[in-house]
């Protein structure tokens, strides 16, 4: 098996962080906070977080916060949205700087996005998606403020998105998709509600995502993609069925998606790399206990030592 080119990937991530004016950075400008989470978490998993100046990062994150609502935008000057609020909280958690925010103000913003039926909107414009259920629940849990929402209704809504194949979609009746499944299983795990899942049925659906090339796809008859190494794998781990896939073959697939010259990982072999797929590839390898990587928590998508610090240290 090839090896994970840790140094190259670290250099790639740090170079992306520095780039602000090229085409790719401008197009991704509005989700830079997500990018920060993907990049910094990957660095931490590879024991390379020391290369970053935490004070600079914290200052920049705080400048992305909308003072009125308490939510965070994707970059400075952007409107608040729950997606970027979670990334902000996750990065602050990573840097052990959750003290930098008014926890109640942030949690009030997130909790305020819950609807009557238990679902969550992404922001004041009202898009509903089980992604936002996960994001809200994960965020509030990290801030120890789950009590601000109606957890039972939140769970009921997620369960209403369960399909006959055991999987979950973005809305009730929506097609089962590995990304949405991760969100629903993660939210159910965090709220102690995994008993709503038929683990054997879902486990089989998930392990059927592994294709001949060893990689995983997100739905039947779709192409394999490194990002599913995360979404399918974490879901299997959370329902205790990860031994149903061939980890060796999956590891080989991920390692084949590396750009060994420039660093970074792409969606499939020989394609262009990006921070998103770099994170998911490294995180997937961590889930499979690839040597030299920090273990990552499957539900919170943060290194286990970070999660332990939040929940087990006072």
């Amino acid at each position, binding site marked *: 098996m090839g090896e994970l080119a840790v140094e190259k990937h670290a250099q790639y991530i740090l170079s992306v962080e520095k780039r602000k004016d090229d085409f790719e950075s401008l*197009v991704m400008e*509005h989700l830079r906070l997500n990018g920060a989470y993907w990049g910094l978490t990957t660095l931490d998993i590879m024991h390379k977080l020391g290369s970053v100046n935490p004070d600079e990062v914290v200052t920049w994150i705080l400048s992305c916060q909308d003072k009125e609502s308490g939510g965070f935008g994707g970059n400075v000057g952007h409107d608040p949205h729950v997606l970027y609020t979670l990334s902000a909280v996750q990065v602050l958690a990573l840097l052990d700087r959750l003290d930098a925010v008014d926890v109640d103000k942030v949690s009030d913003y997130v909790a305020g996005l819950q609807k009557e039926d238990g679902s969550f909107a992404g922001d004041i*414009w009202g*898009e509903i998606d089980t992604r936002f259920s996960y994001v809200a629940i994960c965020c509030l849990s990290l801030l120890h403020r789950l009590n601000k929402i109606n957890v039972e209704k939140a769970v009921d809504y997620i369960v209403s998105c369960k399909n*006959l194949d055991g999987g979950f979609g973005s809305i009730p*009746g929506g*097609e089962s998709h590995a990304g949405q499944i991760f969100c629903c299983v993660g939210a159910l795990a965090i709220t102690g509600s995994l008993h709503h899942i038929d683990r054997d049925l879902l486990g089989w659906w998930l392990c059927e995502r592994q294709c001949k090339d060893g990689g995983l796809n997100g739905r039947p*008859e779709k192409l394999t993609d490194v990002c599913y190494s995360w979404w399918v794998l974490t879901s299997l781990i959370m329902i205790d069925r990860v031994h149903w*896939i*061939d980890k060796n073959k999956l590891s080989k697939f991920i390692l084949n998606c590396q750009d060994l010259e420039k660093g970074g990982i792409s969606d499939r072999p020989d394609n262009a790399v990006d921070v998103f797929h770099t994170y998911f590839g490294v995180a997937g390898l961590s889930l499979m206990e690839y040597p030299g990587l920090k273990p990552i928590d499957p539900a919170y998508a943060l290194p286990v030592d970070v999660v332990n610090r939040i929940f087990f240290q006072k």
Partner: protein
Amino acid sequence: MDYFRAVYVARELSPRALRLTTEALLRNPGNYTIWHFRRLVIDALDSDLVEETLFVDNLAEANSKNYQIWHHKRWLAEKLGPEAANDDHDFTRFILCHDAKNYHAWSHRQWVLQKLGGWDKELDFCHQLLEEDIFNNSAWNQRFFVITRSPLLGGLSAMWDSEVDYTIKAILQNPSNESPWRYLQGLYKGNPDSLITDERIPQLLLNILKENSYCVFAWNFLLDVLCKGLRPNKEIEEAVKGFTELDDAGSSDQDLPTRICSALERMDPIRVNYWAWRKSNLTL
């Protein structure tokens, strides 16, 4: 972008601001803050929503996996109301013609159906897509969505029998197709007794296994029905024994489900652990 930033900070809700958002979005349709501001401007100016729909549809064509664009379409559809449903369905149909599994398009279509209607041609649409590609999992999902939620059909119980026939036909067309097998399994979920009494099931399985003895989905389905209590007829027994004896000396004492699991371990080695677990979990 600096011009946009200026009107955004000043909260200028003018035709000029609208033009600036147009320009900015043509360059970067993913910038959700610009979409938010554009909606504020549209509301303030009471802009022509049909024109706006044309603008966003144009962008959607070139950026069909962009969350912000689809959400803007939803916002517009909500304002335009049920009269816009058919035009909206025409547009998603157009997108799905080029990318039949586009998750955003399907989510949007489901939302419009439930909120604004337009169910009457939906089942035909699913059928058309499945004729073009019987492997399209999204179309199978939509089929179930229509059968169970359309106010124009009788619900699952009324359509159940014909759906079983439809699915069986699809399976026979291509037995290595995952979607109809799951669909069939789903149909019987609410009807577990008929799974073991419905003669169509053993008939289907025998038809397939005679021609495709390495069809994993067929063996898996047979395993399922045997575990649920199907009494195998002679033909099924012979099919299982005939196939499993070819490879596995010493299997002659084992019951049918165990033999099938062993065969699946060999046929589908990437999931060998799953089939081993099935074997260890057999209760008869």
